[in-house]
């Protein structure tokens, strides 16, 4: 590869190689320092079984010179980050990482890092994307990425178990994972009685504090047999496998809570299908898409549906359905429209904001069904701003507007108490007026049996 000009901003930590964007493709360039490991991995037929099992993103070697080896990996439409995953997505990503380390040990290799950013969701399941994370295993050496695994995976999952899924969002403010000492301080005292939690969190926090100022290499090497390391991995795997959220109650009839008349529900489904499928739109972003009920109607004609919701339970339920139905073109995303995940890390570009990633992906249509009243009345976001927000994302917008007679709207308005008059602008006319600045209304239909109107809009050129 001739120049490093297009090196991806997230790709600087590991000297083994880097990511470049060439045209529309993402490629991985390997530096000479990693050649020996890469060649040994190829020789050991390390990659092929992982490609087959879809645990590691597949690649082909495209170029080889003395300066670099270039890999072309299977392309991923949209990379999501740990703080955008639901609990069970997170759990699956953690188990995948342990599985890979176990697999690597079998072949005398080892994961040199265990960052949660090494995993993303692709074709309905977690997949490891950092092909250069494997290194030689050194006999009787401890796992050097162990601490990283704990702070990137184990700590967030255990905290989510005790404090709810919101704890996973802490990853947004801790790009290097949640510090072990912080985790230890947040866990209930009784967790010291669990051998797994005591050793992996509390004891580790103590040991880290004790040795934090020592930077000279130890005179005697620290040793750990492979068998012991395997026990460590297996016990973490079993523990994580059994972890559940305490808050999780019954699923199943989750969608019933949203009180639709069957007639309105079916009308809405058919209308959206007509617009999206009829318009041959294959990349759809469903904002406030709940558990994916509406996107699922369109799924067979889509390349990818990204279904975003603020409600963790809905996202997790969506992921459960993706797994059960083995869907490959549905991506559940935990997303709050009023505070989308920002760019974080070095220069705020190491991990791009979700809006930047979404617009790079380029949805052909955005669905905003039953969200505008929440944005306008709960989030106080003016119509002019939400219109610009949608227009920046895609050229087509399918938006559902519940008018003031809708029971949800009424309840949101009543919560404004004495300020209810400040929200008189919440009506269809003002809505259309503001949206017409950015969009042409292609079609609008009233949803029978409801106080809601469905619009198809196209951005003005």
């Amino acid at each position, binding site marked *: 590869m001739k120049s490093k000009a297009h090196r991806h901003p997230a790709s600087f930590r590991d000297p083994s190689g880097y990511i470049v964007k060439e045209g529309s493709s993402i490629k991985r360039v390997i530096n000479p320092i990693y050649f020996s490991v890469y060649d040994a991995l190829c020789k050991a037929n390390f990659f092929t079984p992982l490609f087959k099992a879809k645990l590691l993103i597949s690649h082909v070697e495209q170029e080889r010179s003395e300066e670099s080896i270039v890999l072309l990996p299977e392309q991923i439409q949209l990379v999501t980050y740990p703080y955008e995953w639901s609990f069970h997505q997170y759990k699956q990503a953690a188990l995948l990482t342990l*599985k890979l380390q176990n697999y690597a040990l079998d072949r005398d290799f080892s994961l040199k890092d265990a960052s949660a950013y090494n995993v993303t969701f692709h074709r309905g399941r977690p997949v490891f994307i950092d092909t250069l994370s494997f*290194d030689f295993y050194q006999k009787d050496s401890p796992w*050097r990425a162990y601490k990283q695994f704990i702070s990137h995976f184990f700590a967030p999952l255990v905290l989510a178990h005790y404090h709810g899924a919101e704890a996973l969002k802490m990853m947004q403010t801790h790009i290097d994972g949640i510090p072990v000492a912080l985790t230890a301080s947040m866990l209930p005292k009784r967790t010291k009685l669990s051998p797994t939690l005591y*050793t992996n969190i509390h004891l580790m926090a103590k040991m880290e504090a004790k*040795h934090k100022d020592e930077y000279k290499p130890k005179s005697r090497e*620290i040793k750990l047999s492979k068998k012991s390391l395997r026990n460590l991995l297996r*016990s973490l795997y079993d523990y994580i496998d059994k972890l559940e959220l305490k808050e999780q109650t019954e699923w199943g009839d989750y969608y019933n809570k949203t009180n639709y008349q069957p007639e309105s529900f079916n009308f809405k489904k058919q209308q959206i299908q007509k617009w999206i499928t009829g318009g041959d739109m294959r990349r759809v972003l469903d904002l406030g898409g709940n558990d994916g009920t509406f996107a699922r109607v369109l*799924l067979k004609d889509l390349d990818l549906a990204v279904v975003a919701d603020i409600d963790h339970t809905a996202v997790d339920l969506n992921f459960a359905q993706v797994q059960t139905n083995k869907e490959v073109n549905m991506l559940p995303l935990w997303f709050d429209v009023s505070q989308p995940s920002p760019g974080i890390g070095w220069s705020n570009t190491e991990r791009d904001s979700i809006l930047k990633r979404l617009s790079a992906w380029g949805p052909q249509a955005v669905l905003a069904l039953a969200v505008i009243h929440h944005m306008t009345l709960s989030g106080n976001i003016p119509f002019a701003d939400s219109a610009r927000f949608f227009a920046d994302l895609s050229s087509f917008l399918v938006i559902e507007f519940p008018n003031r007679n809708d029971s949800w709207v009424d309840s949101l308005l009543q919560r404004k108490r004495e300020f209810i008059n400040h929200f008189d602008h919440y009506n269809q006319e003002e809505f259309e007026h503001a949206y017409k600045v950015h969009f042409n209304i292609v079609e609008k239909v009233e949803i029978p049996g409801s106080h809601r109107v469905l619009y198809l809009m196209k951005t003005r050129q």
Partner: protein
Amino acid sequence: MMGYFTMMFLYFDPGLGAMLVQAIVAAAAGIVLFSKNFMYKVKSFFGLTKSQKDGIDTIDYEQDEKQPNEEQGS
């Protein structure tokens, strides 16, 4: 030729405490796994075990998946 030179320290600090603690973590894990295994054997002797789920060693090389153009389940 780099041989078995590991690049780890070039990349990030694994933490001395975290390296030292692994022997203890692994020992505790060994005991937990041993007792679980023992209980499993006792239970299976009395026919009380359910079929084992996916474990760390389970890798399914022939994943089936539904293609987007197939009819989705209802």
